[in-house]
């Protein structure tokens, strides 16, 4: 499915009320607002242990886990490090790694 954005992926310059939509609705703001920067701990999938049950995919609240080539793949641009995937993985296949500064 082709996703088209009407505006560029940069923040839109807003001078005042009349440049704004009536409601707080931003055009593709998540493209530049990368919430992955909030993460302290990084979940890393160990594909040797992973049985591809996709429970992590289902539980990720962001959702930052995508299915790529029939494997769960974490999108670190948006993974906020809540570690729900770690908690839910039945095979303990997701490791926690501290984010280095």
């Amino acid at each position, binding site marked *: *499915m*082709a*996703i*088209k*954005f*009407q505006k560029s992926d940069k923040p839109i310059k*807003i001078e*005042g*009320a009349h440049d*704004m*939509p*009536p*409601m*707080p*609705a*931003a*055009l*593709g*703001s*998540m493209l530049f607002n990368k919430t992955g920067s909030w993460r302290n701990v990084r979940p890393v999938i160990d594909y040797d242990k992973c049985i591809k049950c996709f429970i992590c995919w289902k539980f990720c609240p962001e959702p930052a886990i995508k299915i790529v080539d029939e494997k769960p793949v974490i999108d670190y641009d948006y993974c906020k490090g809540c570690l729900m995937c770690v908690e839910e993985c039945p095979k303990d296949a997701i490791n926690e790694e501290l984010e280095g500064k």
Partner: protein
Amino acid sequence: MKKTMMGNYAASWGAQLSRVQVIAAYPITPQTLIVEKLSDIVADGELKAKFIKVESEHSAMAACIGASSTGARAYTATSAQGLALMHEMLHWAGLARLPIVMANVNRAMAPGWSIWADQNDSLSQRDTGWMSIFSSSAQDILDSTIISYKVSEKVLLPTLISFDAFFLSHTVEVVDMPEQELVDKFLPPYKPEYKMDVNDPRSFGALTDEQYYYEFRYKMQEAMDQAIDVIKETCREYEEITGRHYDLIHAYRCEDADMIMVTSGTIAETTNVTVDTLREEGHKVGNLQIRYIRPYPKKDILAAIGGAKKLAVIDRNISPGYSGIFSQELKSALYNEIDIPVRSYIAGLGGRDVKIEDIKDIAYNALEHDEPNDLIWKGVKK
């Protein structure tokens, strides 16, 4: 086509004629027959809509918010405690600028548990950013539902249509149902400029800091101001196809009146009749019915008051610790504009019947006294 129906069904059929696409409702107390009828209509295939049964009124409004965000025409109905439970979501619908229309049967807030007429439920939601109507007949309910979708979808503000429990909700009246084709022409499908669409992704309701929140409030106020003209224009359009006239207020025999009663809901209809009898007795009185409390039709009200020397407000509601709410609103509208006494009366709380004789008593009291009063509790058993 003329049909007899109770006020509840006038709301249901108004929604059907408006071709609502999503109805979300909590089906038990304090719900009314409005959504029961609609669930029949949907189940019988007479209306192509999704009927969502939810676990609370808070969820009902949340579901309407979701539906309306995707561009669907959403409807729900509630009453008293149910409306109160929606409170948080009402602010959301308002600030998200979603043109949801909702019926609310005006019932007294519990305790004591009550299912009888009282306006405190919807007046408690006055500041949520919803346009707010008090209907006074079954015809008014049906027509207001259709008109409100058109107005709401133009100005992007939701509308609450309230009407008195039992006196209107369960009273059978003759209602002229407009033909579907006529309504379809008047009310085309909703085509929002901003909607949730996977093919055109946007973030809705995201974190909005002080750099922008203030401006969203400003825009809401602007929309409320514009709504006054949009309501008038839409009512005119509706009158052209149905012959029925609506406005933000309804002034009855006010032109030459010395004393004007200010009323709303079913009390307004009874007051019209009372005005006729008082006129026969030689009293130059009129009745000013407030239909919309938001947007508040200040200019229309001042114009209708014209040269009257005195006003008497009847409130079927109370802001405890101050006074009736329509009375407060009226006084603030008059300040710096017209300097005449306003007499304030409370009547009919919790469904106490307000008869012609009661309104006559109120009128005589107002005619006899020139000084403004704080509050008179009509018929309270002290």
